[in-house]
């Protein structure tokens, strides 16, 4: 935290307020919790999805379906990067995804390539009724025609900066910070 290379953007309370609003928006856009399924993108998207699910349960009393999706095998740059990145597990919700209203959840939306990969993977799994995109932070900089439906916060970020969403399971705390990329690594 004392690292002056990092700029706090959202603290824990900010994230909780954003999650509460996003959860309401998801239920509102869906017209209730009927057929609603959250799919978190591995890894930090799954934590955000789990927070949203808890929030929706608090507000409506309904425990909605939930799964996770690892997009590694659908990346468009696999043969350009190397060595092979670690593949995570995808877990479909028991109710499946056919005829469900899917909400893809991720921590940061940037180039849009992860979401493109997730859409392809979901298409291979089945045919949902509808897919929405929900992200905690939209940092701009899209390279594909993909836009979010529900956003926690829009954060303007420079090319030499990175957005870090911190989650308790991986980072020990909840929050959003900007970090400067090492100029050597550019």
């Amino acid at each position, binding site marked *: 935290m004392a690292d002056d290379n990092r700029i706090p953007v959202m603290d824990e309370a900010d994230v909780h307020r954003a999650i509460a609003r996003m959860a309401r928006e998801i239920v509102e856009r869906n017209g209730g919790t009927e057929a609603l399924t959250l799919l978190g993108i591995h890894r930090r998207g799954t934590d955000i999805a789990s927070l949203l699910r808890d929030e929706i349960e608090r507000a409506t009393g309904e425990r909605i379906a939930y799964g996770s999706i690892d997009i590694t095998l659908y990346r468009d740059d696999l043969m350009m990067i190397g060595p*092979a990145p670690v593949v995570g597990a995808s877990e479909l919700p028991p109710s499946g995804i056919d005829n469900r209203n899917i909400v893809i959840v991720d921590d940061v939306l940037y180039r849009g390539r992860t979401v493109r990969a997730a859409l392809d993977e979901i298409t291979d799994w089945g045919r949902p009724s509808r897919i929405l995109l929900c992200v905690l932070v939209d940092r701009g900089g899209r390279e594909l025609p993909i836009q979010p439906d529900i956003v926690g916060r829009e954060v303007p970020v420079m090319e030499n900066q990175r957005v870090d969403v911190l989650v308790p399971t991986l980072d020990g705390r909840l929050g959003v910070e900007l970090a400067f990329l090492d100029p050597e690594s550019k």
Partner: protein
Amino acid sequence: MNPSLLSLGKDLVSLEHVSREQILSILDTAEPFKEISERRIKKVPVLRGKTIVNLFFEASTRTRVSFEFAEKRLSADTVNIAASGSSVVKGETLVDTARNLEAMRIDMVVMRHGSSGAARFLSERIPSSVINAGDGQHEHPTQALLDLLTIRDHLGRIEGLKVCIVGDALHSRVARSNVYALLTLGAEVAICGPPTLMPPGIADLGVTMFTRIEEAIEWADVLNVLRLQLERMHGGYVPSLREYNRIWGVTTERLEAAPKDVLVLHPGPMNRGVEIDSDVADGPHSVILNQVTNGVAIRMAVLYLLAGGQQESAEAAKQGGEV
């Protein structure tokens, strides 16, 4: 951000010099691949556009089909060549066959060959990745890897386990690959079988020898029962199949006399009633069909790791993590 795995290099020919970290990274990579085979659409696009030749100079059903499923589930384009129907019968050499395939622009060769060292020989002469699917009496790396994955699935670890390889270790490439990988991961390894079927020099690797199956079963957490390779035996290695079964066969009686539960593996194809009794093969100790299922996941993992991008652009992977 995606951490990158250790590179396996160009080929998978042998497990003798593969590190503990590399073996664990293959096993860990196989875990998420298991789930793909349970999907309704059993296919991911990761090897789209890659061409793989399955070059089988020896008979194989399980291994060839397992590799082919693994390749197809990763969206690779595959061609199968069996020696009997190819120009090999016209006298073409291995290198000429491979160079001709190279000339048609392929990316990987999965090869089974009757000569020990054939996979290494080929890997040094062509730029494509070579995966050894069994070379003579040398090695069968993917079989050992799927054995390890199956053991880890059922017992939660490899390190510190006592694994006994039972039977025809002399003719077995499965035994050799298993010994290397198990020792690398810190298991205790033993071999049990008739002295005529013990490979010379095996004790130098730190492997315990048992000549009585009862002792081996009492000692072991895991038995990997090898097939008696009748087609490779010319001469008196064993007195008769009936006697082999009587002395070294893995039977329910013998397993029930053991002080603890023993996990039973067999690489197949089984000679039921010779090295393993039918009621053991189909019984509660057996994980033989789990091995077959895991075989596809392990081969997907190996294909994925070998097909990965170039080492020098690893920095790009770190940059590309946030997408």
